[in-house]
């Protein structure tokens, strides 16, 4: 089951949102040991709270989290411009209304889960972009077994 909602619509998708921020805390804080703020086992930052991002969340039939990502237009504040920029020498300053940034892509696969969850997530991402005049989605992806243990 796929859920698509923004931060301001999170109360109507309460369980999906809470499961996602718990999954993010597990992946980015516990497994990958990133410098992220975790409170009450939830990982949520100012991009969530201040800029009303779009989330795409894939869930198992019982509503538990499998994989998710967060999207923001690059005309506003992005992690690429604010944070990742300094890690990549010569990194271009990506800025366009038809380029969006994907961040906090995380997966909590269990043994036996179908990889189709990932497929579904990216199919929906493509549909959203094609329907909204978004031509490019950019993101920084870390090669890590921890992000996707299966």
């Amino acid at each position, binding site marked *: 089951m796929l859920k698509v909602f923004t931060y301001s619509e999170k109360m109507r998708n309460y369980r999906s949102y809470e499961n996602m921020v718990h999954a993010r805390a597990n992946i980015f804080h516990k497994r990958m040991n990133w410098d992220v703020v975790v409170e009450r086992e939830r990982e949520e930052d100012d991009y969530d709270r201040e800029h009303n*991002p779009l989330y795409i969340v894939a869930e198992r039939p019982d509503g538990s989290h499998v994989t998710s990502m967060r999207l923001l237009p690059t005309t506003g504040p992005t992690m690429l411009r604010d944070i990742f920029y300094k890690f990549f020498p010569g990194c271009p300053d990506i800025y366009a209304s038809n380029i969006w940034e994907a961040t906090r892509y995380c997966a909590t696969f269990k043994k036996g889960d179908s990889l189709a969850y990932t497929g579904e997530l990216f199919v929906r991402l493509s549909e959203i972009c094609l329907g909204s005049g978004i031509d490019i989605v950019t993101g920084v992806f870390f090669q890590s077994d921890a992000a996707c243990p299966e």
Partner: protein
Amino acid sequence: MRPGKHRNGDLSVEHEENKPYSMDGSILQEIESFSRKENFLSTFDKIKEVFPIRNISYVFLSEHPNIKAEDSFISTHSPEWQKLYYEKNFVQHDPAVKAAFNSILPVSWKDLRCKSAKEKQVMNLFREHEPSSSGITLPLRGLRGELGILTITAQETHLIENKANYSRLFSQVGTYVHEWFARQAGLRDEISTPSLSSREKQCLALYADGHMGLKVAEKLGVSEAAVRLYLTSARFKLQTQTTCGAVARAIRLGII
């Protein structure tokens, strides 16, 4: 798919060549030189000459002490409608405006649900004022996260058929308008305005030399997807819709 489209391995050609959605680059480029918000009315009129759009409205939605309510919007709607809208404070109850707070993607008005009597009233009055029109709400994000909205109205089936292309075009137009209002209000300094980075300049320079797509990627030692990314960003920063336009503007400005 038209023959030869992928000849150069450049997928970005696809929407660039989509003629019905491109217009004279000067329409977007003159925005920088505007001194008063009323100048946008000529921009919107020029856009309406190219596309069957009935009305275009913009509102700066984030609250800021530098921006007074009466200076926060510009619209091609009739003075009567604007007067009614402003005096009755419809902006508080307009479902098309509320959509910009809830969604971050463009929203078709046909998908809006009026949740209160007041919201229904605003929508009904709009339909009386502009019969058989529908609209698209485009939420806008400024460099510092400021929220804005651009709405376009047109005949409903026309909007449905063209939603993605109008969303692309008017998100671009809307962002320029939004940044202009932010600059006018003193919310920008020079540092915050994105300029072309070296990779973007290199791509434009190679295009200026007649290279395209795959060739540019090979010369720079990056993927074709990266070249598409740099060129898309460069086109936006140079206020153009096409790579040709971006190359021409970069040369004219002495950037490459």
